[in-house]
Structures are given as structure tokens and as C-alpha cells.
């Protein structure tokens, strides 16, 4: 369980990233965070694995305040929290397998990992993760030879190899075309349901948020301005969150095709 208790974050330059956030996210939930650009979605998500450090309040994961963690505990936390990025963040010159196995780094000794000495189970796990996102045939290809959607699937496989309890995805489909976006979201959703992994996704397309989320959190200017199950959400809710009329560009269009 993830609990934000009055969490605030002020960036060193004085920008208020988060303002008194109070949230409780239950195990296995699929949460979509929406809000205009600059609303603080990334800041919220990146606080959970402490890529940014909140400056006030308590952030509890499984009843431990992660804001007190030192670097060793932090690394341990991060092995349990997978992250997916807008730009896939693969090492482009390395093979797909090497990228996926790097999900095990936190579980593997430094020396072993430097010499590529992974236990058989880890390799098997990496391969199965690739199979789950249907990209096992690209195993030995260089990552920069894959399409954007394929790279994002590799990134999901990397996160699965981590065997996380939580997956954070910061605009995972913002660089993809509509059909590919749906494909990637479908995989995220599938993983969430099959492994009961708490999943928090930032999106800015409202139709996509409606289609995949269990629960929607709306943000504006660093504050949570909406929080509720997707069944309660309609266009008016988004207009409230965004503080303006819904436009065409807020929808991705297209739908799942696979």
C-alpha cells in the first residue's frame, strides 16, 4: 500500500511541485494520473521511487516512511518499484536481452553483474518476461533496431524481470501512435491483473485514461483536485480537472487492435 500523508515538494529553484498531497493507493490498483502539462504528475510518480525527494510530509510504502531511507534502503526499495518512461530509456547499443536482464541488477551482486554472471533462473525470468509482451523473437537484436512500440514493450519486460510490487509509468505512450499506444496500455493492464502489481500511469489522453484505469487521480498546480473510481468519471470531471473545455487533442482516438 502506498500512502501520501501531507506530502509537499519544493524544487531547489522554488517551484512548488507538490502541495499537501494525501492519497492512499491499494495493492493491485490500476491508477491513472491526469492533469495538464506542469500539473505535477511526473513529480508525484517520481516521488514514489524517490527519483525526486519530497520536502515535507510522510510517504509510506507498506507502512515504512521512504523519505527516511538511506542509499542502501533506497536501492532495495527501487528493486521493488519498476519504472517505465516516455522515451523507453533503453541502452540503445545493447541487445534486447542485455536491457531486459538489467532489471535484475538490484538483485545481483556488483561483480556478478559486471561479468554477466546471472543465475539460470534470472535468464529464464528475463526470457519469460519478453514472451509475455510478445517480443521474445527479438532477443538478440540491438535495441535501436526496434520500433518505438517494440522498445516500450522491451522496457515493460525489463520491469517485469524486476518482479516489482509497483509499476510506475510516466507517459508511457506519449511518443507512440494510437494503435501502438493501445497495445502498450493493454500489456500494462494485463500485467497489472495477472501479477496483481499496483500500477500508476501518467496519461494526458482522457479516452485512454477512461479505458484502462480503475481509478483516476486528477492534478492541477501540484494539488490533487480529483480522486475517484473510473465509473464516476465523465467529460465534465475532466473539464473540472483541466479547468477548461475538452478539446480534440485531449483524445488519442483509435482503439485497441490486437
Amino acid at each position, binding site marked *: 500500500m502506498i500512502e501520501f500523508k501531507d506530502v509537499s515538494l519544493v524544487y531547489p529553484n522554488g517551484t512548488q511541485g507538490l502541495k499537501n498531497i494525501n492519497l492512499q493507493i491499494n495493492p493491485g490498483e490500476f491508477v491513472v494520473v491526469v492533469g495538464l502539462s506542469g500539473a505535477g504528475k511526473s513529480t508525484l510518480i517520481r516521488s514514489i521511487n524517490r527519483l525526486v525527494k519530497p520536502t515535507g510530509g510522510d510517504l509510506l510504502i507498506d507502512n515504512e516512511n521512504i523519505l527516511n531511507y538511506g542509499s542502501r534502503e533506497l536501492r532495495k526499495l527501487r528493486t521493488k518499484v519498476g519504472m517505465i518512461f516516455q522515451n523507453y530509456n533503453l541502452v540503445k547499443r545493447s541487445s534486447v*536481452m542485455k536491457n531486459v536482464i538489467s532489471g535484475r541488477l538490484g538483485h545481483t551482486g556488483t561483480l556478478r553483474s559486471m561479468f554477466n554472471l546471472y543465475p*539460470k*533462473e534470472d*535468464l*529464464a525470468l528475463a*526470457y519469460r518476461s519478453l514472451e509475455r509482451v510478445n517480443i*521474445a523473437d527479438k*532477443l*538478440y537484436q540491438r535495441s535501436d533496431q526496434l520500433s518505438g512500440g517494440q522498445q516500450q514493450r522491451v522496457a515493460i519486460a525489463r520491469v517485469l524481470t524486476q518482479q516489482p510490487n509497483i509499476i510506475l509509468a510516466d507517459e508511457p505512450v506519449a511518443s507512440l501512435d494510437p494503435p501502438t499506444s493501445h497495445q502498450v496500455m493493454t500489456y500494462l493492464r494485463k500485467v497489472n491483473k495477472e501479477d496483481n502489481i499496483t500500477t500508476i500511469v501518467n496519461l494526458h489522453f482522457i479516452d485512454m485514461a477512461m479505458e484502462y484505469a480503475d481509478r483516476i487521480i486528477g492534478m492541477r498546480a501540484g494539488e490533487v483536485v480529483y480522486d475517484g473510481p473510473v465509473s464516476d468519471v465523465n467529460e465534465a470531471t475532466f473539464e473540472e480537472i483541466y479547468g477548461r473545455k475538452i478539446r480534440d487533442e485531449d483524445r488519442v482516438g483509435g482503439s485497441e487492435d490486437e
Partner: protein
Amino acid sequence: MTEFTLPPKPKKTPWQKMRPYIIGIILLAIYIWTFTSIEIRWSRVFSQHTIESLTRVIPQLFSPDWSAFGKVMGLMWETLLMAYTGTLMAAILAIPFGFFAARNMVRNKFLNTASKWALNAIRAFPELVLALMFVAAVGPRPFAGVIAIAIGSIGMLGKLYSEVIESIDMNVVEALEANGANKLQVLVYGIIPQIIPEFLSYAIYRFEIDVRASTILGIIGAGGIGTLITIATTNRNWSEVGLILLVIIVVVTLIDIISAQIRKRLV
């Protein structure tokens, strides 16, 4: 869990399979050859003598002998003058080489290749080797150093110039030719304006290199502060060497900074 094996890696050609081994063996052979035949006299390196020198040389190096400051600065000035003369000579003499080597200027394959080869040949020699020859020819004085610097710099500047010339916008040249401009007019109005900033920038950059090079030419008698280095080291006057070192570091750094500033404004 059942026994797991990753799918086989994609088939490689025999050459691809062998390549890492071949490279490995070649590297190993080179290193074995190197380390078995190099003759380092470890007994001298780790001798009492070394310890004594270390305890004498190092502290002296770090306590520069300021009484020699005037003398050192005088010779550093001479060093800069040598570098300046050499670079400027080269900056001008390299121009014809650059044009001859540029394929879009001289449409004669033989001349292009010949001048490229000449420029490459010059660059194969370290300045100090050139300087040694010129010391033999004109005697041990700054002029020998200047000539060595000039010739060494022609090698590099000529090559860079030719690359600049080959990259100019030929449409301008064609337009002028179409307007009936003669060769000289094309040169003055079409080509020179395009190449001047880069030529200057490279010449200034080369001056940086030449300043470094001229500091040591004196070691073989070709003038500049190097002359003093030889004298000071043979006399084991390490605190004077320390001062020379300090002056070289400061002057070279300053020149690099100034030159970088000027070049930034040029291009």
C-alpha cells in the same frame, strides 16, 4: 523449474565467430612481445639513487627559484615570438597547398593527390625531428626552430585549408562565373570571403599547438625557453626547472584561453 535454455543465438558467419578470438590473439601477442622485450632496468628504477633523487627533485620542483624569473620570462617571450613567426609563415605558405589539394579548385587528380601526399608526409615527422635537421643546417639558433615550426604547421594547416575549400558553396562561384567574372574576381569575391574566417580560426588554433611545440625546441638548440631547460637539468637546478614549468603551464593556459575566445568570435 524445468531445465531452461535460452534460444540459440542467431547464426554467425565463421568470420564473425572467429573475429573476437583473432583480435584477442593479436592483442595478446602484441602485449607478450612488448613486455618480454622491453628492457626496463628495474634495479635502477627502484634504487637508493631514485629515492634520493625523488626526495631532492620533487620538493625543489615545487619551490620555484624566483630569482631566475627575468631570464625565464625573456626566453618565454622569445618562444612566443618563434611560435608566432613559424605559425604565420605556415598560415601563408599553406594556402597554395590547400588550393592544390582541394578537388573543387584544381581539377587535376595528379596535383590533388601529390599535394595531399606531401602534406601527409610532413605530418609524419615530429617537430623536434625537423628541428634537429634545421639545427644541423642553419646552426643552433631560433631560426632553426622557426623553420621547423613553419614546416610542421604547413602539414596540418594545408590539410585543414583544403577541407575548408572543398566545403565552400560552389553556387556562389558559378554565379560569378556566369556573370562573366574573371578568375581573380571569382577568387576575391566568391571564394575568399567564404574561407577567411575558418582559415584564421585554424591558424590561431595551430598557434596554440606551436607555442607548446616551441617551448621544447631549445632542448636541441633551436632557441626559446627549451635552451634554459637543458642547462637547468644538466646542472640539476630543479628549482629553476620548477619555475620554467610554472611559466610554461601559465603561459600555455593563458594562450589557450585567449585563442579559444578569439576563435569563438570568428566563427
